[in-house]
């Protein structure tokens, strides 16, 4: 049975942000494995995705200390 919290807290929101950021970083490299993209190494689109994903992870980390306050 799926158990869901009654509401999302700041800490949980931070974890969601971190998860999304990590998924974006992973996804940007996975597309290389399937042959997408036209650049050797890290292309310009990947650079932008990594930058944005880094920011999202950073925001997520700063939300963790806010604990159980409602998001």
């Amino acid at each position, binding site marked *: 049975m799926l158990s*869901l919290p*009654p509401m*999302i807290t*700041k800490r949980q929101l931070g974890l969601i942000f971190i998860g999304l950021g990590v998924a974006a970083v992973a996804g940007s490299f996975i597309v290389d494995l399937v042959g997408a993209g036209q650049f050797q190494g890290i292309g310009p689109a990947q650079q932008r995705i990594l930058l944005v994903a880094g920011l999202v992870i950073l*925001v997520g980390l700063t*939300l963790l200390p*806010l*604990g*159980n*306050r409602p998001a």
Partner: protein
Amino acid sequence: MTSSNTQTIPSPTTPLTTSQKVVTWVPKVLVGLAVLIFVGYLLVYVYYAVQLFRFPFDYDQGEGFELMDTILFSQGEWPYRGNDSYPFYSSNYPPLFHVLAVPLVWIFGPQYWTGRLLSFVGTLITAGAIGYAVQRGGRRWWLSVLSGLAFLASNYVYHVGALFRQHMFMVMLETLAVVLLAVTIDQEEKDGRKRPWQLLGVMVLLLAAGYTKQLAYTTVIAVFIFLFLREPLRAIKWAIPFGLVTGLIFLGINQATDGQWMLNAITANLNPFVPGQAEGLYRQWFSLHIVLTLAAAAYALYQLYFERLSVYAIWFVVAVINGVTAGKWGAGESYFATAIAASCILSGLAFSRLITWAANDPGPTGTRHFGPQWPCHPSSRFCTFPGLPGLPPTHAYANPGAYCHGSGLSRWNHDRPADLMLSPARSGSDPLRGFSRCIVAGTAAE
């Protein structure tokens, strides 16, 4: 109590000095001028729209398609048809806007002004909804008026608002959905009573927005993120039927058009992405709406760290992110219209909050209070600060996440009902006698 915390409260009968008169009147004059300027923008917009209604030909490359769609619907035919056979025509857009224009075409014939009028009225309703949202949150009529008029004053709204294009009608439905959701959740959190019918209204408006233009998925995402943050299970319970109904309508139209709906409304819209176009439009949108955007972004950030995220903040962020789709071939600046509507509401609420904070404004309850504000240590559950003579004990502007503002429980609901609890009690045995107490109630146990 230290003397530094003691302030003299001016008596209503004391005559004002010249400097006090200036301080009193200058803001009023500036606000009056601002309202006049924005009313001027409105008059220009109305004049432009009326002139456009009288222009008998297409004024924008897309108007002819929109009118053709409406004509086909008025004849009981689908506009989603094969491009390979005569008249080699098909529509890329969902049907609702054109269907609503059909009665006007029946009565007045295939005139461009019919759809232009519908779109124009849609922008006025959107502005009204923006003003209403800001009024609910701020209770300052002039700020509400300015927020609504700021939407109509946007270059982008001016450009497409009075055209026979469905985009601004979609924005109207999106705005109505978000404002109704904000009202519903606010009411529910105040009295603890669920309002499923109002939430159903939100879903119907979202569905209508999506079947006006596909881009409304942005607002659908924002609404469900907000619902998920507030009540994850409830969000899922509403998302399932919403998805089912949306999908069934989609399949129904696709079936009725022999697959042409899917081909033309979805596949044909998957155009190449032009990064330079996206970047250019982002820059243009930001430079043209810099005050609205910065104020909205700052308030969204404030809500992220110091209070609960409102649906307006989530809507604004999701819409701004979705602005990247303006870089799609065939897209344009109108893709930012949703972000502009959200920024008008959020910036209006931000300015309202700022004014309240800066001036200790009495607000809707009319309770006047003076004095400095004492921040609390983020780790502290209790926020203590000296009281002021002759005033109710609870005057606070407190952390963490705690906008604690007002004079006792009468202000509780207006400010931050979910985050804070004000304790007006002071007893003789209270070790904090002479002080007020602000209890941060972020978690149930606290």
